[in-house]
């Protein structure tokens, strides 16, 4: 049972990284106001939200299996308090940072109507930190499993997907974005 928990934790962690990558990609596409006829912007935003909740579900399983597995003796607190664990403090700490950031992103998105757009956007900028931290956690903590060719291929595909989406986001132009950067007519 202990081995099953160990591999379940590894597997769900990898799937959670893929889902987090998809969430990040759709978030970047939505922020860049990119859409196609069959996928309007509101659909991309909805998919971004659904995938983020799915990521949280898989992360829940990832954390639960890691904590229940007695081998590494990871506590529930270690999953949320960065750099407090005895087991691989640096890499597990990065995972805890990623979870804290993701929790902040999800909670503020669910409360977006109440907290206001400005605060929500400010907190949502930390998403740019969340993905690389989670990626580094996956690369570092996996040990021998992380260095298998197919695992590295999955990691590389995730990296490429985010890089392409980031490039599209940074080069995308939209009349709203252009207007935001121009001085207001009343200020002239």
């Amino acid at each position, binding site marked *: 049972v202990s*081995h*099953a928990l*160990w*591999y*379940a934790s*590894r*597997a*769900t962690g*990898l*799937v959670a990284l*893929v*889902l987090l990558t*998809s969430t990040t990609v759709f978030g970047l596409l939505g922020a860049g106001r990119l859409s196609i006829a*069959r*996928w*309007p912007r*509101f*659909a991309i935003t*909805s*998919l971004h939200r*659904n*995938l983020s909740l*799915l990521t949280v*579900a*898989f992360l829940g*399983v990832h954390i639960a299996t890691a904590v229940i597995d007695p*081998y*590494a003796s990871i506590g529930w607190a270690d999953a949320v308090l960065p750099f407090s664990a*005895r*087991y*691989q*403090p*640096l890499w597990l700490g990065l995972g805890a940072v990623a979870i804290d950031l993701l929790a902040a992103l999800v909670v503020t998105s669910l409360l977006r109507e109440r907290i206001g757009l400005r605060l929500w956007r400010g907190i949502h900028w930390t998403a740019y930190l969340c993905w690389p931290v989670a990626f580094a956690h996956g690369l570092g*903590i996996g*040990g*021998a*499993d992380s260095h*298998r060719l*197919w695992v590295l291929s999955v990691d590389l595909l995730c990296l490429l997907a985010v890089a392409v989406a980031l490039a599209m986001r940074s080069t995308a132009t939209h009349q709203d974005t252009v207007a935001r950067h121009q001085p207001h007519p009343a200020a002239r």
Partner: protein
Amino acid sequence: MELHQLHQRHRVAARDRANERVSTVTAWCAAAGALASALFGVVLGQASASAATASHQVAAAAAGKHAVPVHRRSRARALVGPTQPPTSAPAQNTPAALPPLPAPVPTPTSGS
């Protein structure tokens, strides 16, 4: 007026179709994620098990002893933090890894 209503109806239908598409893709992602988790778990487990079998056979042939399985060793290695010294590999403790004994010195058997 009718044209406007027709346009409005068309937009609502397009929105409904997009929402349906989002639900379908989300459901597929959830199913694919669950399937991928199971598959990744099995592949990781089998890779470790086959490596353990190979290591077991090689070590047993070399030393005539039972070797520690690779998956156990990888878990043990994962526990080694930056402040702890790395544990020695079991292969280093086998007789095959020890330095060869010096050749026996011939001793005189009879006095002359």
